[in-house]
């Protein structure tokens, strides 16, 4: 009982902190870092849905992010669609390509699934560079309008912060609802033992396909937010380092937990910024690689499960 009260007050405190942040942290640079942490939280949550719950590692997640970003940007620039419609289209198109990948990769597990997703991302990236008429090639698409919902324009960092917070919160709730449902238990069952899961009537193809669609759609939504926040997209959104960053966030934070990806996203967005003064980008990436190896060797389940285990022991 006491445990429940402590938990509830912690949640209220955290929500209060998150909602008031722009008022006690008005520095635009700090807000920018938090906005990026929010966007990466959505990406990490979406990757975790696949990697953590179904056990499928997608190394093409930057492609869904990029497809979302380009869809939203192109619809806003060339068809003058409003932000909300562009956002929905970004989610749908990324989810649709997730469906295609999911269907194609249905029979593939483990390393093969990884290779198909990585190849898909490779092709998507080459298309974004080479299809000049549509994507403007390596030059990218500047001048994307700021997000606008019901007449309110999210032009300031503070406004964007709340928008990203809302979408990230929604993504978290979707994930929570999903993994605690019958479907989430089916995901875990498929991860642990697919043959056994199938023998008790879990339709593997349907569930894994659905997980891919939802995960890809969420990543597409994050891409749309990113495009309307930075107001510029280029083939860089397809960079493999984005995917690597997401994987590190999920693995270090704790795959297969709800809080893990968010903890990982916040740590690994703030850490590089904190190190920016002291080191170059190469040193940071070097550190990322070493941290990933060390986490897997010494903390294989990630930060959040380790903390939970420590709390339960006390």
């Amino acid at each position, binding site marked *: 009982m006491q445990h429940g009260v402590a938990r509830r007050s912690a949640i209220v405190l955290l929500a209060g902190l998150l909602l008031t942040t722009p008022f006690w942290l008005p520095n635009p640079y700090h807000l920018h870092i938090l906005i990026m942490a929010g966007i990466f939280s959505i990406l990490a949550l979406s990757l975790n849905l696949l990697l953590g719950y179904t056990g499928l590692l997608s190394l093409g997640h930057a492609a869904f992010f990029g497809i979302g970003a380009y869809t939203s940007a192109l619809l806003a620039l060339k068809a003058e669609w409003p932000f909300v419609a562009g956002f929905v289209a970004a989610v749908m198109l990324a989810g649709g390509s997730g469906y295609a990948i999911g269907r194609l990769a249905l029979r593939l597990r483990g*390393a093969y699934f990884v290779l198909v997703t990585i190849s898909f991302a490779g*092709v998507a990236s080459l298309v974004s560079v080479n299809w000049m008429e549509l994507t403007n090639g390596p030059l990218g698409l500047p001048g994307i309008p700021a997000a606008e919902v019901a007449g309110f324009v999210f032009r300031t960092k503070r406004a964007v912060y709340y928008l990203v917070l809302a979408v990230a919160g929604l993504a978290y709730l979707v994930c929570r609802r999903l993994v605690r449902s019958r479907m989430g238990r089916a995901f875990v069952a498929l991860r642990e033992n697919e043959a056994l899961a199938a023998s008790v009537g879990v339709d593997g193809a349907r569930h894994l396909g659905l997980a891919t669609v939802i995960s890809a759609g969420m990543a597409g939504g994050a891409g749309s937010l990113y495009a309307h926040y930075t107001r510029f997209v280029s083939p860089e959104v397809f960079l493999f380092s984005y995917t690597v960053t997401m994987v590190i966030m999920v693995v270090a934070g704790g795959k297969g937990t709800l809080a893990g990806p968010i903890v990982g996203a916040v740590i690994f967005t703030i850490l590089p910024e904190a190190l920016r003064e002291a080191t170059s980008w190469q040193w940071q990436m070097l550190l990322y690689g070493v941290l990933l190896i060390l986490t897997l060797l010494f903390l294989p389940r990630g930060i959040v499960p380790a903390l939970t285990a420590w709390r339960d022991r006390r």
Partner: protein
Amino acid sequence: MEAFLQHLLNGLLLGGTYALLGIGLTLIFGLMNVVNFAHGEFYTLGAYLTFAAASLLRVNFVLAIAVAILGGSLLGALCERVLLRPLRGESIDTTMLVMIGLWIATQNGELLAWGGVAKSIPHPFPTAPIVIGPVSVAPLRLFVLAAVLVLIAGSHVLIHRTRLGVAMRATFQDRETAALMGIDVGGIHTLTFAFGSGLAAAAGALLGPIFLVYPSMGDLAALKAFSVVILGGLGNFAGATLGGVILGIAEELGAGYVSSGYRDAVGFVIIILVLLVRPSGLFARAGRVG
């Protein structure tokens, strides 16, 4: 027609080095079951070691390549000992993520050590191409093709004709029985990984002088190695050799007749198509997979 023959020849020359990469990875991925995303880093390492030896230390060109192969093998052995041995028995995903970590760390380490500017490796061959009938070829490329053939033949003999090769294949078919037969299973693991890494380094050392050497050159090489392995079937030595040649020719034809911008897409498309249509590889005999 002449252009076609020229593309075919270029593809064959390129495909030989892809075959080296693929044979190395088919040992590591196909036999050892390690999804080695760091494979391309050994390729990069081979190129940089050749550059260091040939350009900075002014070592003989052929010797420089030998140094690179040896260096790649030694580092491969070290990786197996330090990173993979503690993880044996862990899931394939864990080792894959560790290799991704190694990939990022070494690539950025190389970026820090050598800088981002591409280097070119000096070589002793004349630059004027040799004209044979309708096609022409640079002497350096002929040397590379000869070296590739020697290395492939050597690997074939090692794997299929020596006691060591038998021990290798036995270990990965049935660990316990191999150990009971007195095979040093741990040593074979280290040796196989070192051998595969050495072949990747050889590919880098041989392609480095033809193209340029830069820190991220291994990224595409690793993915191409994967497409070669998948094309040939996991652990299939002859398949990897043929797969490499097919990828090389397909890339040259794709770049020549479709669009040079999409040259590197060929490998990706091959991965997707083969895995969808014939996941056991093009050259697998029925019933041998799984």
